[in-house]
């Protein structure tokens, strides 16, 4: 075993574990401890209340809608950035990072103003009978905005790495563009695409800053889980806050497992392509 040639293992591991323990694990354990103190019947009462269930339903469906939009737009963006040369390409590439760099509260504020009844987009949309601000649609738009880079940035490098040989081979065997796209390109980028979509979905589930401005926050209709947690805290109902936060944590863990599974599948697919 050729380890321990390099010194500093104890110090580096100690620092890492201590910091993670104090900053990340301690609070999460405290949350779980608090939640475990709630009796099962009370826990059931909190989680099965119509308002909690409605918040969970709104969060899940709108996160799903946002992910569908991001899947399509993100795939097109990644394709364009990886495959085409055109004026403004560098600018477009930089713009993809806007949602990550822009604070979510700022994004939420801007989207609300854009889609409000008298906003730049709200006014024409209202004229054809579509309300966005203060409706579930607004929630989906805010979620899509904050998580679009996940899809682009996971798919883009994979399309870039896709050699033109397979395409040419397909073409010399008489395949049409559509066939090549469906049978060669899409299967190769699918694992990365799925990983990007899962990341986008996971982020949407927990999004708060961007959503609360545009959602209107009406219980049962446009209330997301993160906001309900926040409201329970402000009501000093710590048990309910702990219970709902634990559900959110659980959803995050499930997504983490899904993402890890998809990513290891992606690595296997890439590995198979190399050999």
């Amino acid at each position, binding site marked *: 075993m050729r380890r321990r040639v*390099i010194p500093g293992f104890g110090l580096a591991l100690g620092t*890492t574990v201590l910091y993670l323990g104090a900053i990340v694990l301690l609070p999460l354990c*405290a*949350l779980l401890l608090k939640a475990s103190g709630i009796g099962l019947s009370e826990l059931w009462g909190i989680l099965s209340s119509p308002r909690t269930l409605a918040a969970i339903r709104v969060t899940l469906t709108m996160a799903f809608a946002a992910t569908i939009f991001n899947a399509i737009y993100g795939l097109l963006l990644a394709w364009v950035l990886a495959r085409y040369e055109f004026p403004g390409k560098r600018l477009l590439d930089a713009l993809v990072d806007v949602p990550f*760099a*822009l604070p979510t*509260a700022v994004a939420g*504020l801007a989207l609300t103003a854009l889609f409000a009844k008298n906003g730049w987009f709200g006014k024409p949309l209202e004229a054809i009978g579509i309300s966005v601000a203060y409706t579930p649609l607004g929630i989906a738009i805010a979620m899509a*905005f904050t998580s679009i880079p*996940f899809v682009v940035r996971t798919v883009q490098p994979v399309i870039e790495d896709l050699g033109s040989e397979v395409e040419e081979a397909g073409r010399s065997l008489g395949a049409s563009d559509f066939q090549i796209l469906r049978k060669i390109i899409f299967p190769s980028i699918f694992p990365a695409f799925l990983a990007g979509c899962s990341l986008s979905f996971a982020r949407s589930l927990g999004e708060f800053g961007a959503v609360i401005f545009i959602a209107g926050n009406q219980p049962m209709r446009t209330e997301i889980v993160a906001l309900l947690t926040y409201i329970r805290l402000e009501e000093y109902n710590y048990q309910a806050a702990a219970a709902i936060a634990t559900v959110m944590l659980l959803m995050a863990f499930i997504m983490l497992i899904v993402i890890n599974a998809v990513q290891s599948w992606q690595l296997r697919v890439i590995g198979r392509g190399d050999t």
Partner: protein
Amino acid sequence: MSAEPLAPNSSTRAAWMHTPVGGAPTPRRIVLTIVFIITAFFLVAPLVLIVATGLSSGLGVFWRNLTEPATVHAVMLTLMTALIVVPINILFGLAAAWTVTKFEFPGRTFLIALIELPYSVSPIVAGVAYLFVYGSQGLFGPLLEAYDIKVMFALPAIFLASMFVTAPFVARELIPLMQVQGTDEEEAAVTLGASGFATFWRVTLPNVKWAVVYGAILCNARVMGEFGAVSVVSGNIRGQTTTLPLQIELLYQDYNVVGAFTAATVLTAVALLTILIKVGLERVGRVPHAGPSH
């Protein structure tokens, strides 16, 4: 890197083989148009709106809003938070990356997963979790109260919550890079008699310094913009524990829309500067282009 696989220059191949899938003028034009239109509405319009609204009442009002005491205080608090959190996370990122890339040990994969955990946890959950550690209902609450130490709804909680949400930023940039670089150079240095610290300072750090800079800049942007976690733990006491994102919400709730957008302009400028530095670092090739981010 982007265009090179598209153009096989061999003249022996038939012309139809030169046009890659989607490369013919018509599909190309359609796809580009769709992307441009969505991007203009979805990513560009919010930026334009923020600046336009912030400046809508003229530069004089913009300046008055900007220099209003509560906003100035929020700017200072935000800067202070960044000055405390970013250096700590740089040190943590270096230690974490050094641990998981230079050594093999049981539980290594688990540690990497743990480093990335804050990415998946909602900031609201992080804020609530902190409440159950330092709040009056929390684990250390009674102890802290006995010694009259205030963590919750005060500055320490803002710093701690910011550390939670940004803990992975520097480590995330360093780990893949240091994994590729391996341990050969460090082993050579140590064999030649360099101390551990000298090895780190003279061999490792120069190899990864731009990734550190990049991670620190992303970390800084997130610290300055964090809203959910901070709004739970800060108590939102006007003029005391309001960071800039919280101040934006307060102004907006007071129907001071122009004031809110003025404060938002400051954070938008930070965001654009962050992207500019990222593009700059990519162009000189100091950090990998694109790649799975966050």
